[in-house]
């Protein structure tokens, strides 16, 4: 009996002593070798560049002694988890990844911390790409502007680039496409269904992302702030928008497989990997997919250039930037720890390391360094695209407008609406949403 009691006593003692070491919860006390910050937790989407991010996080842990927990989430569930975390009494995460499309509602609502509130001296150095001030929010104007407060750090510099098959175009005597006419000429040449298609477009899963590159290249716009009148001008129903929509519909339908209404970004990448299309414009993050011998039949045969326009120099690749932000519902100590990581990750040498591991970097100097390495055949196209980059809708109800646009574009793709009806309805609905959200509209 006594020996049983001794064993139980020993087990209890062990549990008390060793318990914290095995506990899964957050360690609030920094390790003796760390630079003094508590462990941080980062919510990030599971994407092809997550492996690269893990690599640089492990470098950070080694260099600083700080601990970082990475919580991966499928992109579809990301917004739900972020909303739940930011509206809880205390955030589960110390850093959350946002999306250009819906980040602004969190800036406007004060759910993420202004970085200058954590460190009044915080500022970006000139090498950091700010992508039309994607992380700055001007509360008076209700949009992203240079005058805005900094709420985040761009971590995934996704931008559209035009991918093309170097081997096929070279054999057929084509140069990389520079204009939309070049695109149709190449598409016409290679179109041989069901073996080969000429071109595919993103018809579902945010089709507006593909349309905006065409729209902006025709000098069209969904909406823009008019400085003189102080009102917002809705431009989606103008003639240049109709011209852009008609051209985009040709890109999506004319030289595509029969299932074009269900083609999204994943299907575009898959068709390019399988060698069934000679070109497609999509995000930078897609590039490593074409070099993966386990999944791609076109390894070493893909090149990249700036997304075409109506004529050379009138290019307008759209950005799909993902910023990191720090929840406002955190104690100061955790906010400071999170900011320390964000400042570290933006350093030039860290960004180059991130890029080499497969990350989509957010410094111009890092892209230029990567472009010198032939393994990063897409880096020069990105570096060349940044001067032309155009942001998506930059107002607080961006998510609401994009969701509405997606509904209309999916209908015009399958012929339920004419292009004219689509743009008319889009104008009416954008106006209603903007007015509903308190924006002055002219």
């Amino acid at each position, binding site marked *: 009996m006594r020996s049983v009691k001794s064993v139980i006593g020993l087990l209890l003692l062990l549990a008390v002593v060793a318990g914290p070491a095995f506990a899964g919860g957050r360690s609030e006390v920094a390790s003796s070798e760390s630079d003094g910050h508590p462990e941080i937790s980062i919510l990030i989407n599971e994407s092809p560049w997550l492996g690269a991010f893990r690599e640089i996080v492990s470098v950070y842990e080694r260099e600083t002694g700080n601990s970082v927990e990475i919580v991966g989430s499928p992109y579809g569930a990301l917004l739900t988890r972020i909303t739940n975390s930011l*509206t809880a009494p205390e955030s589960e995460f110390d850093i959350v990844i946002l999306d250009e499309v819906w980040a602004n509602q969190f800036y406007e*609502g*004060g759910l993420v911390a202004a970085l200058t509130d954590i460190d009044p001296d915080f500022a970006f150095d000139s090498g950091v790409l700010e992508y039309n001030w994607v992380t700055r929010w001007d509360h008076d104007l209700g949009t992203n502007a240079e005058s805005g407060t900094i709420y985040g750090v761009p971590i995934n510099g996704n931008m559209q680039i035009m991918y093309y098959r170097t081997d096929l175009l070279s054999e057929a005597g084509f140069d990389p496409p520079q204009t939309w006419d070049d695109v149709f000429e190449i598409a016409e040449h290679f179109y041989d269904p069901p073996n080969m298609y000429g071109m595919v477009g993103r018809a579902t899963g945010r089709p507006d992302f593909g349309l905006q590159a065409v729209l902006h290249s025709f000098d069209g716009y969904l909406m823009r702030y008019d400085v003189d009148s102080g009102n917002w001008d809705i431009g989606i129903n103008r003639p240049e928008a109709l011209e852009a929509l008609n051209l985009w519909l040709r890109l999506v339908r004319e030289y595509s497989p029969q*299932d074009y209404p*269900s083609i999204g970004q994943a299907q575009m990448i898959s068709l390019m990997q399988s060698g069934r299309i000679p070109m497609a414009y999509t995000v930078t993050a897609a590039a490593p997919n074409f070099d993966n011998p386990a999944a791609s039949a076109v390894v070493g045969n893909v090149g990249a250039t700036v997304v075409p326009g109506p004529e050379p120099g009138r290019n307008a690749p759209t950005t799909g930037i993902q910023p990191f932000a720090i929840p406002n519902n955190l104690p100061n100590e955790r906010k400071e720890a999170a900011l320390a990581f964000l400042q570290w990750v933006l350093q030039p040498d860290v960004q180059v390391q991130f890029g080499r591991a497969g990350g989509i970097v957010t410094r111009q100097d890092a892209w230029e360094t990567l472009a010198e390495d032939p393994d990063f055949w897409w880096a020069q196209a990105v570096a060349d695209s940044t001067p032309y980059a155009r942001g998506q809708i930059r107002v607080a*109800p961006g998510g*609401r407008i994009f969701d*509405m646009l997606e509904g209309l574009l*999916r*209908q015009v793709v399958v012929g339920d609406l004419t292009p004219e009806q689509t743009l008319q309805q889009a104008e009416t609905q954008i106006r209603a949403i903007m007015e509903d959200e308190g924006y002055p509209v002219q």
Partner: protein
Amino acid sequence: MQIRNLTSWADNGFKYIALAPLIIVLVVLVAAPVVQLVSTSFARTRFASGGIEFTPVGLANYRAAFADQVAMRALLNTTLLAIISVSVETAIAVVLALAVGYSRRGNILYRTIFIFPMLLPPIAIGVMWLMIYDFNYGVLNQVLAFVGVRGPAWLASNYLAFPSIIVVDIWHWTSFVFLIVLAGVETLPHELSESARIDGATEPQIIRRILLPLLKPIILVAVVTRTIFAFKVYEQIYLLTDGGPGNRTEVVSSYIMRVFFNQNRMGYAASLSVLTLLFIAALICVFYLIQARLGRDGRATK
């Protein structure tokens, strides 16, 4: 007399005291979230001052719902999906349940095979059917190509996407109705059908005149439960078509999800949820009215 009254009061009082914990748990777990949903449906929400700000808007969300073409289309699609799927599933399930219930061999094997689809997670079913329906690489089109037919774009066609979704739903849920009806078949007294057989009744007559009327209450339970489930369809739509092409396969759940998260309109999403709840409740009332009428007609015929 007074003692008897006191005893009777104590008996009645104890009844309520004994039930009280359960009622409190029900109110907290069921009623409170519904009350919150209903109250949110009369509000407009937005992120402000580091939290969610609620502003009362009266019936504005409900008026918007009736004017929302996509919401109405989603409701129509969901209703059609529920009616067609549940009807077909019930017909197949009754036939299978009778066959398995009265089979002399392999009863357990058939039962295991037929309930298999119900055991799979909806996401796995979505992925599986995506690989079957895929235009370029799908099994279905490869089989068609083998016999010289060029397969269509099942999930992207204006005419085939919705029927393709219904096929998946039937494949997934027939086993659920089958399981319930089979439980009913196994409780039926065999003497009734055996005596009818001795009296010269044929098998179709036994099924139509004896077994189906006896199974009617349990079939109704299966239909009502399945209809409620059908209105919650989400995963397979999300994976297979995401509501497209156009909005031909948009359903209530997927639309509410989009309104709530993508559009960040919690109040409006709550109003759509309340309307869906009322619509399903009305549908169930109709089922029970039909059952009551059938019961009366049956008794009148006798």
